[in-house]
Structure formats: C-alpha cells, structure tokens
C-alpha cells in the first residue's frame, strides 16, 4: 500500500505539471487579455511600462517557469514563514493579482472560510441525509418510500442548482420572508443572536447543495446496499439468529459503505467547482465568486492559480479515494 501511494504521488507530479501547462497556455493564447483593457488614451510608452510592470512582456516559457517557481517554492515558503516566524522567503516575488495588486494566496485565504462553512456543512448534511435514506429504500425495495425516494433523487440531480436556489429564494425570502436572500459575509458570530443569523443566512445555500449531493449519494448507497443484501453472508447471519437490526446495520451497512465512502471522497473537489453557481445565486463571497470576478477582469494570475488549485484538489481526492478503497476493502490489492 505504501509503495502504491508513493507511486501514485510520483505519477501525480507530471499530471499536475501538464494540467498547469494546459491551463497556462489556454489562458495565455486566448485573444482577450488585460492589455486590451488599458484605455487607448494612454500613450504607448506608458502602456509598455504598464505591461512590463505586470511582467506580461516576457516570453511564455519564462512566465510559466516563474509561475511554477512562485507557486511551488515561494508561496509555501511564505506559508512556513507566517506559521513559524522564519524568514525563508525573504522579499521574494509572490504571485500577485493583476486586479488588486495583492498576493493571490492572501485573497484566497480570505475567501476560503466562506466557501468552507457553506459548502462543507452542505456536504456533511447531504451525506447525513443520504445514507439513512439509501439504507431504508434498499431494505424496503419497491416500497412507497423507495419509489418516492427514487423520484426525489431523480429530481435532485435533474433540477439545476441555479433553479432550486432561485426557487427557494422565491418561496422563503419573497413569500415567507424567513431567510435573507443575500449572504452577509461581514457577519461575525459573537453571541447566540448572531449565530442564529448565521444559521438563517446559511440555510438556503446549504439546502440547495445538500439536496443535490444527497440525491447522488443516496442512489449509490441504495444500489450498494442492494448488492450486499443478496449476498450469502447475509443469509448466514440471519440463519444464526441475529436480529434484523444487527444484520442490516452491522453486517450489510459496513460492507455497503465501502464504495460509498470513496464516492463521497471523489465528490469533494467537484463540490468546490460546482458551488460556483450556488455562490453566485446567494451572493456568497467565496472562492467561486472570486473566480468569476477574476475571469471578468481578465486577471490571469488569479484565474491560473485558482483553476490549478481546483485541479490539485481533484487529483488529490482521486488518490485519497483509491487509497481509502484499498484500506477499507482488504480484497482490493493494488500491488
């Protein structure tokens, strides 16, 4: 298992390098650039100096190399510096956003908590809803509960999140007035009242994402349970007189959770990317909103860095899912 992990980690390096190159080339070769947004009244020599100040006049391989160096050497060094008070990255050039002229990583660190609270809790709630539903609808296959569950799950992943979001806004903010339709990022949770306020403003985005995730995970849970319920060991367990509760919740559930856990791990990075839309609907000022704004403003370093971070997350969680599968299921051997 360890050699497998190491081999996969080593394989991930060229993959990630190639992905970063693809993203870089895509962003770079595209005709739209921040240079075209400099007003025409700016004299040519000033324009040339502005481009030079952004570092956009260098040939492409130098800029790509510089970006790699900054992302993999300078930024971790700054991270270590701020954590332990060392001075590894003394005055080195960081990746700087063309929009705000502040380091990209600082902005990302500012936005990350919003995304994490909303999306993280939505994912957890989605899983918590999905697993019991999946268990029960598999146990009572073709019962009315199962039929309704199947239908709701079908709706859950057919109706796009931007429509469920808007629908919830219409019902809960416009008609009932229970929840605010816009997420207030500046809210600080200090006492019980502000905590309630935070819960209320998180309710709708969490609901939208939780429904979407629960729909998918409950389907996986159901089919995985169904696979296991027909196995011989279940009959054996019943034959030795174990109670139904022990059979289903101990024997079957443990085995059925193996593929579901990997599906859950695989879903985490797609949540980050998919939440762009939900963040946009509820005006949550998280990573998705940051990416959209950077794209609108042709802020190439920001777009490049964010997309690459998403790619790293995908590769990382793919690896985690594979390793988890190997650990949980002793029948799976990678070497």
């Amino acid at each position: 298992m360890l050699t497998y992990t190491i081999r996969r980690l080593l394989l991930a390096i060229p993959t990630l390098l190639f992905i970063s190159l693809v993203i870089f080339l895509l962003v770079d070769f595209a005709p739209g650039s921040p240079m075209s947004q400099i007003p025409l009244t700016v004299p040519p020599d000033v324009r040339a100096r502005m481009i030079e100040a952004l570092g956009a006049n260098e040939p492409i391989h130098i800029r790509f190399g510089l970006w790699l160096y900054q992302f993999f050497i300078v930024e971790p060094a700054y991270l270590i510096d701020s954590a332990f008070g060392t001075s590894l990255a003394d005055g080195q050039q960081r990746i700087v956003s063309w929009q705000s002229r502040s380091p990209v990583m600082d902005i990302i660190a500012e936005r990350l908590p919003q995304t994490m609270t909303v999306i993280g809790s939505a994912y957890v709630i989605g899983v918590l809803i999905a697993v019991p539903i999946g268990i029960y609808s598999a146990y009572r296959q073709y019962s009315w509960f199962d039929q309704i569950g199947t239908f709701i799950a079908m709706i859950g992943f057919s109706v796009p999140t931007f429509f469920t979001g808007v629908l919830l806004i219409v019902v809960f903010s416009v008609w009932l007035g229970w929840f605010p339709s816009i997420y207030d990022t500046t809210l600080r949770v200090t006492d019980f009242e502000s905590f309630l306020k935070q819960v209320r403003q998180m309710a709708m985005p969490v609901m939208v994402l939780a429904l979407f995730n629960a729909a998918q995970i409950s389907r996986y849970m159901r089919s995985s349970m169904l696979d296991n319920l027909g196995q011989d060991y279940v009959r054996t367990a019943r034959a030795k007189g174990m109670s139904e509760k022990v059979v289903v919740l101990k024997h079957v559930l443990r085995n059925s959770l193996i593929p579901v856990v990997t599906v859950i791990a695989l879903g985490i990075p797609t949540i980050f990317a998919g939440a762009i839309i939900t963040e946009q609907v509820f005006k949550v000022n998280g990573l998705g909103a940051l990416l959209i704004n950077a794209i609108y403003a042709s802020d190439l370093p920001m777009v490049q860095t964010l997309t690459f971070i998403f790619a790293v997350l995908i590769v990382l969680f793919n690896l985690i899912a594979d390793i988890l599968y190997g650990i949980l299921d002793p029948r799976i051997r990678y070497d």
Partner: protein
Amino acid sequence: MTDVAPKAAMLPKSLDDLRPPRSQWRDVWDQFRTHKGAMAGGFVLLFLVLFVLIGPMIWRIDPTFIDPDAVKMIRSRNLPPGWAHPLGTDQLGRDMLARMMAGGQVSIAVGLTAMLISLFLGTLVGVSAGYFKRLDGPLMRLTDLFLALPLLPLLLVMVMLFRDTLSRSFGAELGTFLLIVGAIGVTSWMQAARIVRGEVLALKEREFVLAARSIGTPPRRMILRHILPNVISPIMVAATLGIASAIITESALSFLGLGFPPDFPTWGRLLYDGIDYLQQFPERVMWPGIAISLTVLSVNYIGDGLRDALDPRIRGR
C-alpha cells in the same frame, strides 16, 4: 434414421406456433415500454420538442419584437398573463411565450449538438484505445488528464476568452453557439470514452471478432462492421445522459452571464434575466426554470429506461 426423429420433434406442430421473427429493436422497444418513467419522460420530451418547434408556427409573435412606438412600448411592458400574451411580457414588452419557444430551440439545439460532438470524440478515443493496443496507454492517460481538469472553471475561462474573436468571425449568435457547443463537447467526452473502451476490450476477445480477423478483415472495416454496431447500446445511453448534462451546462453558463448575448433568448438566459425581477414577477424565473428541469428530468428518465431496455440480461424478464 436415428437423427431424423429429434429433428421432427423440434418442428412446430402447426403453423400457428410459428410466430414472426422478432428483431432486436422490437424487443428493446417492448422492454422500454414497460418502464413507466421512461415512457412518461418520452411524452414530456415530445411535448416540449413540439412546443419549441411547432409552437412558433402557430404563435407568430417575433420573440425579439419591441414596439418602436415609445408610448405603446411602455404600455406593453411587464404585462401580466392575458389573452394577448399568455405568459405576459418582459421589461421591454417582448412576448414571453414566444421567447420561451425561441429559447427552447436554442437550448435543445445546444444540447443535441454538444452531445454529438462529445459522443464522436468519446467513441473515437474509446474505440481506438480499446482496439489498438499501442494507443491504449497514451489515450487513457489523456482521458485521466481531462478528468482531472476542473471543467466548469475551464469552460468559463474558454467562453470568456474566445467569445469576442468567434463573435467577430461568425456573427454574435453563430459564434457563441459554436463556442459553447465546442467547449461543452470537448470537456465532456471522457465518460463515453471509458465506457466504449471497456466494451471494445471485452468484444475483442469474442469468437466472431477472431473469425472476422481470420478471413483477413482490415481494421477499418473490423471497427465499422463488427465493433461499432455492438457498442451502440452503451453509446446510446451515454448520448441521452449527455444531452441532459449539456443542457444544464449551457444554462449554467448563460446563468453566469457568460453564455449567449443578452437579446438572444435561451432558457438559461431567460432565467438569468428574470432574476432581476424576482420580487415582482417570480413567474418569469419559473417558466424557463421549469422548462429546463422538465427537459433534463425527462431525458434522464429516458436514459434510465434505455439502459434497462438495451441490457439483454434484464430484457425479457
């Protein structure tokens, strides 16, 4: 004499027992018909397609028509549903029913075209990876790489960066259409490729392929005559599900403001435009949203039914 008797026993006793031979597609259709959700989905989809295709021939109001007379234009703004405008009018006095029909045409066209592109790419990659051993490694690495790309952000970047150039060379509508369809197609072929590759790898070990090869069939005809017809069922299932995801992606792009130009209605764009008037006229968000959801839901149900119908292990049970 000994081997005649069993033969005679196998013959049908009368001509009534001789049922007409049934084709494979007849069996598939019979199985498909028993799937209630798929049939309901089929009818809903048929209705929606008729609505967007035949509808404009009956409801002959130009979806982009704004009254040139300023007074009339202001009077015809934001009308509630009525006989003249069954779904009301928008903030510029354009008829919502006509816009829904026009928007549906674009959304469904985008879904179909993007699906065809991604299917073509997926089948090409899948068949070449499965059939030619030399290509298998590199092509599957490529597929894994594409699966590791963050797709929605990349789509956004692609649309944002290439929209203006393509609009200039092909016109705003056609340029955006080509860009969106191409971008969705290029970023969604991986699942189909993996499924097709798996099927081809299994097919290659079958006797009929060996027989075909032993009489000297060249690879091109091998693939077109023997391999492709046998992988058609997973491709069809992937195709239906591909339409659904392409429609969702297009409307998501339009929703983020990075889709078609503002005066060019698609369902996603109509929803996006309706958000500004959410408080006063929530129905303006509802109609396009319901249309998108119904289309995707019915297409997903049809995909479910197709998967059951095309699986010979389930069929006939």
